[in-house]
């Protein structure tokens, strides 16, 4: 049986590449820039409001800001608006924390038809799962490195 590599027809693949339509580069970058920047400004806006009205330590302020942003991202996903923003803005709506919320909520809603255990709860992490896994693992790694560093120094 032949393997995949024996099928690769480089002439054809190069030809396909040369005639394939391209994304509108400048336009997609501009869109990502302004939408991404706008979402961050929204976060800054909530941050200033919290700073001015409640006297909280900076860590807690940041926590509440991300909570609000995640709420907004989830809500817009539920309304079916966030996917349209995503289509327009690309990276501009994937990278902000609202995009993380979108990646949790969208499969949760989508797989409701498969039930609340195997559907909603388990599919919730199809996209966000890797983020949590790598996030936690790398933070433990960093923690251990610093722990050893503090022991030695």
């Amino acid at each position, binding site marked *: 049986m032949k393997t995949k590599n024996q099928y690769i027809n480089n002439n054809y693949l190069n030809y396909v590449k040369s005639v394939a339509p391209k994304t509108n*580069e400048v336009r*997609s970058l501009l869109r*990502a*820039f302004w939408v*991404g*920047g706008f*979402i*961050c*400004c929204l*976060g*800054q*806006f909530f941050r200033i409001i919290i700073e001015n009205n409640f006297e909280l330590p900076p860590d807690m302020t*940041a*926590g509440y*800001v*991300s*909570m609000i942003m*995640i*709420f907004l991202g*989830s*809500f817009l*996903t*539920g*309304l*079916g608006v966030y*996917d349209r923003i995503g289509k327009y*803005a*690309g*990276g*501009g709506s*994937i*990278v*902000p*924390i*609202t*995009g*993380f*919320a979108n990646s*949790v*909520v969208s499969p*949760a*809603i989508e797989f*409701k*038809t498969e039930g609340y255990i195997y559907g*909603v709860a388990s599919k*919730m992490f199809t*996209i966000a799962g*890797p*983020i949590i896994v*790598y*996030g*936690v693992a*790398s*933070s*433990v790694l*960093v*923690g251990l490195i*610093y*722990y050893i560093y*503090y022991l030695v120094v």
Partner: protein
Amino acid sequence: MNLFLTFLKTFAVGGLICVIAQLLINYTKITSARILVSFLLAGVFLQAIGVYQYVVDFAGSGATVPIIGFGYLLAKGAMEGAKEGLFGAITGGITSAGIGITSAIIFGYVFALIFKSKSKKN
């Protein structure tokens, strides 16, 4: 004027981070899960070598709202925890990122109860 400058910095830095992601999408056909993971790891790394704190001090939410800020938070928690000992080094990251993960799960579940999946028309 000061307020305007703050927002300008937030807008510029936040926008730039998103532009990097868009460049990755345009050139590498990378999927959104991969982008989120690599940006998160970038945040962890940049904070671990002590760089990202400066970006956060400069741009505020422009640096913390993108997922890279989530990585920053994880690393920062772990580094602070490490000062208190081994237990802190292990739990520090998820403690400081707890609010993000918890709210995503709670809102995700609640909205899944409320909303139904809708088809797209375009």
